[in-house]
């Protein structure tokens, strides 16, 4: 947990704190922060910026504001979602899966690759990828930003070597070919704000079918 080498950018952490990211990106940030004390500290700093901004301005309230709030309190506390504990999936991801790693409903997505799309709002896509040890994911570029968080095993690409907890932040320009390490199968959470573009013909045809 302490040897995470690839982190979130300040602007992603700030946007998460401000609450302006698409849901799928929020999920990737929450999942990385669940594993990374450094990014958690930075995030708490950005939350403090939010707190300082909150302190600055005031708006007059309705006359019965406090009374209505007390009435609302009287209706009781909303149910608290139980946090799931899983050795592979961080809490927020397990929450979207509706269980631990064994509850993931994988679908084939090419040779040696399986995926499961997580139910987020449509402005960005979050999916779990299961890449067999030693397998290369087809060379792809993408139009938007792509975040890939390693949850099990490891992969390498042009940008380096990524292990559990590491997150790759890839922008538009990057074309990369992730290859899973031999040994353990690699499981990642991958988030994109635009569809991927595969270079070879077959994955491209498969793209609408698999929503990648």
């Amino acid at each position: 947990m302490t040897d995470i080498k690839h982190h979130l950018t300040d602007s992603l952490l700030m946007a998460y704190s401000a609450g302006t990211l698409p849901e799928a990106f929020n999920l990737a940030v929450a999942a990385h922060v669940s594993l990374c004390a450094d990014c958690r500290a930075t995030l708490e700093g950005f939350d403090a910026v939010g707190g300082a901004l909150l302190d600055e301005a005031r708006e007059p309230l309705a006359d019965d504001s406090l009374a209505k709030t007390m009435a609302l309190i009287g209706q009781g506390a909303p149910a608290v979602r139980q946090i799931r504990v899983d050795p592979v999936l961080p809490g927020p991801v397990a929450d979207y899966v509706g269980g631990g790693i064994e509850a993931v409903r994988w679908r084939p997505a090419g040779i040696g690759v399986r995926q499961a799309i997580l139910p987020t709002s449509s402005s960005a896509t979050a999916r779990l990828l299961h890449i067999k040890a030693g397998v290369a994911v087809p060379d792809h570029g993408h139009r938007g930003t792509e975040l890939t968080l390693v949850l099990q095993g490891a992969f390498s690409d042009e940008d380096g070597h990524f292990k559990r907890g590491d997150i790759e932040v890839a922008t538009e320009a990057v074309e990369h070919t992730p290859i899973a390490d031999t040994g353990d199968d690699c499981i990642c959470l991958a988030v994109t704000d635009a569809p991927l573009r595969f270079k070879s013909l077959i994955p491209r045809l498969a793209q609408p079918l698999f929503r990648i």
Partner: protein
Amino acid sequence: MSSDQGQTNWPLQMEKIRDARDEAAFAAVFAHFAPRVKAFLMRSGTDAAMAEECMQDVMATVWHKAHLFDPSRATLSTWIFTIARNRKTDMLRRDRRPEPEDLTWGPEAEAPQEDVIALQQETTKLGQALAMLPAKQRDLIEKAYFGDLSHSEIAAETGLPLGTIKSRIRMALDRLRHAMG
């Protein structure tokens, strides 16, 4: 207890809410923070009626979750900000807001008093640094927190290329950090 924001011992008020369900303590927290939460929601683009309703919900959550407030990890302003931000996401976008694991601010033991004081001092410095930022950087930070704007949308709105915006936000943050160090 003074109503002056610099003087009020918010951790103590929150303890009273948590341990004794003290309505007078809640009224004090409400008098200070409710107008700020409402302003925050309106600065985020919510109309007055919706901001009022959403604010009541946020303040009710402050009551219900009082046991999760840990003054050694966040000031009351910061903690209430996170609640208001989450509620804003729920209400405006109808998205779920995934939260990190283990961010249940719940202290089993009482937080050491020196940690609470150190955090409050640091946060005061942050507020001062924020107030002293040059107008242009200040603008960008406000846009980042109050606009529902992504970086590329900010670029379109200000006519500045994306790289410049990102580096300016970064510079603003570096300055903030510097001022806090």
